[in-house]
């Protein structure tokens, strides 16, 4: 199940299965309330998304939501705060965590691109995009938010 989560896009609800089956060694932990809350918000966005001329196209494709689920399933930190999951015009999804003066935002766009932004004291931090160089890229972002990584 874990190999599946890391190699192919998950289908709807498979991220939940990853958690349920997480007695497997190395699997994401079961007790991650923030992830359950994020998935519930994501489901609401999927159901409510509309094309709203004058405001934006807020419809989210199955591929985009699956991509977001796949990323969330990889973030095996139990005690992160509950993120806010918000639509991005053009069919994307933004997942934002805030803690003290830090914010971490993962933007999953409809074309598959993912942008991770770290904000501290309302300023976006300048840093190289190391996605692809480290398979812990997203987890490290969450660790940074929690003050566990530089």
């Amino acid at each position, binding site marked *: 199940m874990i190999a599946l989560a890391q190699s192919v896009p998950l289908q709807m609800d498979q991220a939940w299965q990853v958690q349920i089956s997480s007695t497997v060694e190395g699997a994401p932990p079961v007790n991650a309330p923030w992830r359950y809350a994020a998935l519930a918000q994501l489901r609401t966005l999927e159901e409510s998304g509309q094309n709203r001329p004058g405001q934006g196209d807020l419809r989210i494709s199955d591929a985009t939501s699956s991509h977001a689920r796949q990323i969330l399933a990889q973030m095996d930190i139990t005690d992160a705060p509950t993120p806010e999951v918000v639509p991005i015009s053009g069919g994307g999804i933004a997942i934002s965590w805030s803690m003290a003066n830090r914010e971490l935002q993962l933007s999953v766009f409809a074309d598959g691109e993912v942008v991770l932004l770290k904000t501290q004291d309302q300023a*976006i931090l300048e840093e190289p995009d190391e996605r692809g160089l480290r398979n812990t890229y997203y987890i490290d972002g969450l660790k940074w938010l929690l003050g566990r990584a530089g």
Partner: protein
Amino acid sequence: MPPLQDDATIDPDQSLIRALRPGWTATREDGTERPNRLAFVDGRTQEASCFIDNDTNLAELRRLFPGDKICRFAARFARDAGFVIQRKPGDCPPGFVGDPVHHLVIGPAEEKPKKALLRMGDALALTPGIEILPPAADE
């Protein structure tokens, strides 16, 4: 999609309004509300619809997007953040009762990487003078 051309007939002090979805706002340290970067980002078209600020258009936005918050900002705020402003009457929402030439889009002059677009949205959202309008009396 970009490229867009800035319309010099839009005065830098012209107020523009845009309807925001829930989640496209943030709170300043002083407790007032402002848009966040997502309010001005479209991952597909890179264009965000706005309208010339007047009573008719404001009423129309409130009618078309009931319950949604509306932000107001000067055209120069958008330009200072790197956006250009172009009239797009042809993309005016169906059912809009007002002058379609009052429908504008803001976006980059040329297509930008998404990270750069998010930064532009951030710069506009953090502009001190940008505001969220209070709800209408009947909302």
